[in-house]
Every structure is written in C-alpha cells, then in structure tokens.
C-alpha cells in the first residue's frame, strides 16, 4: 500500500469502519511510514473534538420558555379565533346585500325605462289625436 491509498481510508480506519483486510494493510503501512502516522495522529486528535463537543449542558428553562411561547401564541390565536367563523357569514351577507342592491338598481332602471316609454307613447298619442280631431284639411278650409 502506498501513502495516497493509505490516506484515502484513514478516517474510516480511525473510526473502525473498514474491512478487516484493509485495516491490517493500513496498520502495516502506518508502522513503516512516519508521515502517514503523523497525519493519522492529527486526524485522530481532530476527530476527537466531536466527542468533546457532544456534551452540551441541557437548558433547564427550555420547557418553561416553550410553554410561555405556546401559551402566548395560543392566546393570540384565541383572540383571533372568531375570524374563521365570521368569514363565511360575512361573505354570505355581502352576497345577499349585493344581490338586493343589484335588484333595486335593476328595478329602478326598468322603471325608468318604462316611464320613458310611457312619456314617448303619450306624446305620440297626443300628436296622433291632434291630427284626428283637427285634420289639416278642415283647418285649412276653416281659414
């Protein structure tokens, strides 16, 4: 085994995850190669940092803080809890009001149109009646 191959598997060797045969080869190489042995020591010491960092003192007040945050957010959501119930009712009311307003508007427009039509027909009938009651010939003859 050469140095390059040895170095490639050194992390696995240190962590003991290599197959037995490869492990033996690396061990033999390390016995005879000072630089690889020195690098293996460096790796071992560096990776040992992980073991030292694993121990983290637990925060004894974390549960209390979480309970506080949850109760705050719970209270806030309770304050606004009527909103989801109110939204369908509000939407329904808006539709009803829009329908009523639309109906009134339409009624007004139709009434207006009817009125206009009545005025036009009244005016026309007046003219027609005038012609009937007082034909132009008799009017001229009367002169």
């Amino acid at each position, binding site marked *: 085994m050469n140095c390059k191959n040895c*170095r*490639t*598997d*050194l*992390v*696995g060797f240190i*962590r003991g*995850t290599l197959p037995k045969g490869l492990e033996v080869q690396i061990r033999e190489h390390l016995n005879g190669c000072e630089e690889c042995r*020195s*690098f293996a020591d*460096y*790796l071992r*010491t*560096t*990776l040992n*940092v*992980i073991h*030292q*960092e*694993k121990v*983290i*003192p*637990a*925060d*004894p*007040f*974390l*549960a209390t*803080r*979480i*309970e506080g*945050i*949850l109760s705050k*957010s719970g209270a806030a959501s309770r304050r606004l809890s009527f909103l989801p119930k109110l939204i369908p009712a509000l939407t329904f009311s808006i539709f009803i009001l829009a329908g009523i307003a639309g109906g009134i508007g339409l009624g007004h427009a139709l009434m207006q149109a009817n009125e206009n039509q009545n005025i036009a027909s009244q005016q026309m009938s007046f003219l027609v009646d005038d012609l009937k009651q007082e034909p132009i010939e008799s009017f001229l003859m009367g002169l």
Partner: protein
Amino acid sequence: MSKGANSTTPVLMNEPEVLKLLLAGDPAAVRSLVDQYQPMVLRTARGFVRNTEDARDIAQEVFIDILTNLHRFKGQASLSTWIYRITVNRSLNYLRNSKRRQSRLFYSEDQNEGRRSEAVNISDPDQKNPAELLEQQERSETLHTAILSLPGKQQVAFNLVEYDDLSYKEIAEIMHLTISSVESLLFRARKNLQKKLWVCYKASTSRENGTKPKS
C-alpha cells in the same frame, strides 16, 4: 448553573407514553418531551451549527415545531426519527438563512473572541491549560470548516453518525434513503473530509517548520 438546573430532574418515559400525554393535552407532557429529547436535539443541532447558543435557539424552534405539528405525526416512523428529521431540517434552514453563519471562514475578531471564550467555558478548565484550549479551538474550527464544506447529504449523514452515534439503518430512516445509499454517502464524506484535513495538516506542518505548504 442556578438552582433550577438541579431541581428539574427529568422523568424519562417511553415514546408511546410521551405521545399519549401530548395528544391528551397534559400540561406536564411538554416538560417530559423537552426533558427527554433536549440532549438529542441539542447534540444534533450542534453538529450543524457548532455554536451552543445557536443550537439552543434551534432546539427551541424544534420543540415548538413538534408541539404545534403533533397532529401531523402519523406514527409511521418512531417519534425520535421524526424529531431528528425536524432538527436536521431546522438546522439546515438556520445555516441557509444566516449569511453570518455561512461565512464561517471569515470570522471577525469579535466572533473569534466569543468562540474562544465559549470553548473555554465548555471545556474542562481543570484539565487543560490555555495553550491546549487554544489548540483544541483551532482544531475545532478546522474540523467544522471541513465538515461544512461537505455536500449537503454527506454533511447530514456524517453529523448523524458522528454526533449522534446513529446506526446506518436509523440514518436511512431519517434521510429517507436506503442503507446502501447511506453507506455510500458516509464513505464519500470520510474521503472528502480526509482530503480537506490533509490540506490543513500540510499547512499546519509547514507553518511549524517555516516552509511553504505543498499540495
């Protein structure tokens, strides 16, 4: 630590018991859940963010996530697997969203000071002198920089196996992968890590010998 630290003795329960209490809305359930899973969540988060305070922030977010989304837990995986998933996602989001944390290579003097003081607090002061603490701090930074530079999935798999001592099967469940994929990820992660640490090793030996580093 204050008296509170000693007064809160965690009462450990098994997963079904904790779940039952949580679903029943038992007020004591939150405390049981936090007491039971806080070390696990902190350890996993610390593997990603490498800063105890950041890890504590993530832990808080994780527990709030768990408690507000409990109705979504279907019980297909174990509760701890679900919590691991939430922790990993929260940690990755935390890293992604924080540019300050992403640019770890370029520490300001203040951050370095803060980190050094944290390292001093965490480490056992009875056993290490300042020079040893400084060396450990440097090694820690080297290692974390190397791990952070790993591709995403390799980083997750490596952290879960190294920081949480999980089996390949457990990691496969958490990451939704097959066991052989996890093996492959870890193999590549270790290889990449070795390459990056080799460069650091060469640089440090060159510094010690006063020579220019060779690749």
